């Protein structure tokens, strides 16, 4: 067996002008480094979104408070939702796509490494762009689904919505570029023997998620283009006086928006489907059905969008159709829940931190799913929609689902990323803080919702029957969550530096990526493996399904790591680090930024303080030119040094 190199320790080869330090990160085209960039950036934005949530909770901690103004509150919940969805959960998932997909399928990188770097930089710059609006006191304030006509110039004349529209466009480009990249990677870079039905289930979830992304994002792109044109060029798409129909925006948005919520949950499902078998020491129960259910959820996900619009008066037929189609999703999702329990049944369950989070997802997502089914009954939804009952639903699925899965994933894969284990003690503390905290925060929201509290209100009166729950949420639940997040951040920082040094497969996990050294060398696989089974690390040599090997004990192993051969020594061509994707991303962001300037100049012209759009058009033209130049120079340079 040619496992010689695999057993050795890495030595990362640095062979370019971008050596070491910051430059190596700015110019990196290595999927693992990009994955880490995604991870840390997304965690930072999770903290930002969480901070916004805490300000929301402070304002709602009692009736008639004035912690923040009405305007600020509206910006807070808009940015909280937008940040959590587009700048925290999606990129956290992307961190795993990047880091894991090539490792799980036995590849050396993604199909288009530079495009991958571009996706990350566009995400980073787009997120900074949108958050920059805070500093001019003009953060977006139209709600995360920005219903027209409130978002049109007539009712939102400030630049707030401009930042939102353009920021989302930028982030959309990032997701789309990444989407195509991963689709090709998964289709075309699987190691020999890694057929579709042997693919690790996370890769399956990621694969389907990419299709949701590339099919759903164009729709919101167009919806946003319309809004952008309305706001900047005076078109009529959402212009009420011209006879526009506000439902156009709603349909387009939710045509995107519902697939989007599965974009948020499927990667977490995938992670959990990796974690549960490992710590049950038993294969995933009903792997094929798990795959089909992902596909089914995704397909159904395109046919249910109008369940967000039961109160708009679509008529009984549409209500009935969308109510039923929505409820159908419970079937494939239920199969997943039951199969997860089936996976654990008969297992040998170890309650490690990743496992706790995975079990947490199963327990908590179910609650959110069931309230989802309650919304899916249109007459009942007429009482629930736009109340805190909905807020309860989506925090159960988003926090109890996506975040639980993603936290589990971080704990699970941290040793593969860094070679070190995150503290299990702190991890378990974090889990229990969050488990308790999220239930105390989000469960009472069901009650206040049913008791008539509308969502998105910055203030409420006493004597409405909402005060007690809001106090419990703000004074008990939310602080527990803060402690949980702080525990996580602390754990992350400390463990990166001084976590326990563990072996290459500390959990005794079954999938291909665990055959690699930790941290993974830049070329991943010294030799492209040939895969003969779904759980290669668990297969006893003769291919019969013996019991998985005993997992190693979790102890610190201070022996210094052996150095691994470099890519050059192995004659593995590695992509050349390059800053071109970063330049292109910067030019792209500047192009959109120019449009804000354009809008500003339009206002100046209207006020008689300026006569033309010269400067802003100049900025846009210049950045467009730079974009094209960097694109050409990127495409015309070979990926790797000629050899």
């Amino acid at each position: 067996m040619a496992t010689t190199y695999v057993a050795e320790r890495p030595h990362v080869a640095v062979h370019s002008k971008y050596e070491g330090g910051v430059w190596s990160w700015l110019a990196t085209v290595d999927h693992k480094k990009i994955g880490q960039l995604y991870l840390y950036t997304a965690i930072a934005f999770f903290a930002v979104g969480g901070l916004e949530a805490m300000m929301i909770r402070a304002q709602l901690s009692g009736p008639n408070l004035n912690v923040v103004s009405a305007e600020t509150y509206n910006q807070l919940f808009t940015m909280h939702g937008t940040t959590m969805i587009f700048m925290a959960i999606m990129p956290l998932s992307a961190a795993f796509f990047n880091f894991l997909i090539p490792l799980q399928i036995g590849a050396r990188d993604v199909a288009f490494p530079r495009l991958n770097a571009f996706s990350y930089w566009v995400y980073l710059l787009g997120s900074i762009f949108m958050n920059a609006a805070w500093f001019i006191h003009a953060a977006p304030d139209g709600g995360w689904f920005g219903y027209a006509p409130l978002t049109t110039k007539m009712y939102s004349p400030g630049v707030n919505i401009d930042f939102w529209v353009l920021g989302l466009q930028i982030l959309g480009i990032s997701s789309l570029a990444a989407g195509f990249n991963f689709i090709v990677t998964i289709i075309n870079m699987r190691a020999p023997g890694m057929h579709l039905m042997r693919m690790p289930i996370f890769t399956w979830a990621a694969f389907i998620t990419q299709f949701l992304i590339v099919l759903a994002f164009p729709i919101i792109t167009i919806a946003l283009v319309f809004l952008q044109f309305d706001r900047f060029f005076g078109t009529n798409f959402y212009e009420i006086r011209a006879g526009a129909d506000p439902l156009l925006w709603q349909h387009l948005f939710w045509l995107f928006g519902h697939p989007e919520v599965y974009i948020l949950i499927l990667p977490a499902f995938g992670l959990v489907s990796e974690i549960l078998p490992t710590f049950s020491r038993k294969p995933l129960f009903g792997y094929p059905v798990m795959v089909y259910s992902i596909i089914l959820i995704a397909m159904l996900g395109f046919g249910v969008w109008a369940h967000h619009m039961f109160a708009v008066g679509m008529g009984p037929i549409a209500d009935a159709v969308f109510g039923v189609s929505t409820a159908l999703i419970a079937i494939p999702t239920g199969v997943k829940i039951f199969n997860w329990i089936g996976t654990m049944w008969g297992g040998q369950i170890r309650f490690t931190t990743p496992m706790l989070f995975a079990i947490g997802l199963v327990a908590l997502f179910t609650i959110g799913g069931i309230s989802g089914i309650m919304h899916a009954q249109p007459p009942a939804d007429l009482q629930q929609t736009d109340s805190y009952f909905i807020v309860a639903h989506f925090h159960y699925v988003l926090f109890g689902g996506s975040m639980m899965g993603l936290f589990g994933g971080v704990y699970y894969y941290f040793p593969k990323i860094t070679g070190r284990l995150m503290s299990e003690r702190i991890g378990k503390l974090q889990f229990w803080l969050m488990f308790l905290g999220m239930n105390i925060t989000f469960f009472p929201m069901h009650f206040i919702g049913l008791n008539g509290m509308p969502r998105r209100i910055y203030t409420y009166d006493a004597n409405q029957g909402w005060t007690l729950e809001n106090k419990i949420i703000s004074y008990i639940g939310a602080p527990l969550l803060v402690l949980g997040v702080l525990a996580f951040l602390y754990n992350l920082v400390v463990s990166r530096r001084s976590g326990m040094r563990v072996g290459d497969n500390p959990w005794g996990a079954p999938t291909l990526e665990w055959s690699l050294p930790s941290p993974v060398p830049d070329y991943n696989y010294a030799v492209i493996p040939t895969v003969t089974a779904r759980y290669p690390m668990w297969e006893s040599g003769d291919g019969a399904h013996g019991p998985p090997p005993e997992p190693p004990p979790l102890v610190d192993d201070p022996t210094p790591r052996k150095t691994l051969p470099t890519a050059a020594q192995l004659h593995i061509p590695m992509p050349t680090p390059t800053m071109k994707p970063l330049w292109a991303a910067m030019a792209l962001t500047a192009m959109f930024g120019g449009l804000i300037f354009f809008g500003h100049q339009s206002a100046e012209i209207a006020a008689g303080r300026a006569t033309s759009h010269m400067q802003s058009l100049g900025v846009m033209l210049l950045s467009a030119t730079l974009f094209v130049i960097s694109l050409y120079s990127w495409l015309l340079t070979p990926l790797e040094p000629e050899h």
Partner: protein
Amino acid sequence: MADHSDHGAADAHAAPHGEEHHPTWKTYRWIALILTAITAAEVWIYYIPSFVKSRAFVPVLLTLSAIKFAIVVAFYMHLKYDSKLFRVLFTGPLAIAVLTIISLMFLFGHLAIHS
């Protein structure tokens, strides 16, 4: 995207796939002729007022353009001869797109435009 293959085997594909599967120059000419003929037919019926008023107008136009669409995709984009994967990658999204348009037409009470 034009010039450099990021990873992968450009050479594995180009030559061997070539002539025997692909339609020939003669087929291409025929296809161009058919497409032109259909387009001409479409424009022609547009100018027959009685036909425009009839119930058949819209279905006929839709069918004609669907045929054109299919021909270009099948032959010019050689989907007919190419890997099944491409067929899936294209027809799946196309089906979702078409269904989306149709459901939106229903939702906005616009299917009336077809009669």
